[in-house]
């Protein structure tokens, strides 16, 4: 699969949709996962959900009875995207830590 860097918003939206959620639920879940650091604004979330639907990374669940709010869920393709992204993030982290790891040593030695 082509390696692409996901935006923070998309990454957390995909993770949130491991279980079915509607827009407000995604926003709350993202805020919870990131300890309040990532706050998805409604316009951004709306645009991202539409793009993700088009790409087939998530799907809209058929209207669930009383609640008119649309719920979404991660697809198999979406899961693969998340896995690829995690591998990419691991590489970033690994390289970052390997190089900056020497920085504290240098400081201690000097």
């Amino acid at each position, binding site marked *: 699969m082509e390696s692409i860097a996901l*935006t923070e918003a998309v990454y957390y939206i995909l993770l949130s949709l491991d279980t079915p959620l509607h827009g407000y639920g995604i926003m709350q879940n993202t805020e919870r996962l990131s300890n309040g650091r990532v706050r998805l*604004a409604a316009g951004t979330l709306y*645009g991202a959900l539409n793009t993700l639907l088009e790409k087939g990374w998530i799907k809209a669940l058929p209207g669930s009875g009383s609640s008119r709010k649309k719920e979404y869920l991660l697809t198999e393709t979406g899961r693969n995207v998340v896995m690829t992204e995690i591998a990419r993030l691991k590489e970033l982290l690994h390289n970052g830590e390997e190089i900056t790891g020497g920085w504290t040593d240098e400081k201690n030695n000097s």
Partner: protein
Amino acid sequence: MKKIIHKVFTAWHFEDEEKWINKMAAKGLNLTDVGVAKYVFEEGLPGEYQYRVELLENLPTHPESERYIRFMEEMGAEYVASVSRWVYFRKKAEDEPFELYSDMDSRVAHLRRINILLVFLFIFEVWAGVFNLVVGIAYGMAINVIIACIPLILALCIIPGIIRSVRKYRRLKREREIRE
């Protein structure tokens, strides 16, 4: 009590418009309706609402816009009013700060929509001016030549707006190249 204020904001000053509406809201005057250069406020509690202004891709009556507005309402915002493709949302200020966009991509896309609108308006004004000028000269009608000045002057007024708006768009796009 209702209060109607007539005020003109150009499309490239939409952020100033938003600031002004929020300043009114902070004083307890809540926007409830809009028209062309017309703002209707209702007296309420100072600082009760936060307002946001957005240019949609389609008219608010378009199914896509209706879907968007419904989504905004599900997310706790309230649709206040609209003028052509400009929509006004508000949210109770007790929650966290009300923002429409939390990433640069959507801000860039919004500015792009505004730029396209401005360029379209410019072309339209030039066309209307030139059309009247040609008719006026071809048929020797002075009135058309005079009328032609109005859209041509408007077109000239739009130019600084386009420059300002395109600059802002480019600055944001360059910034986007290094961060989200």
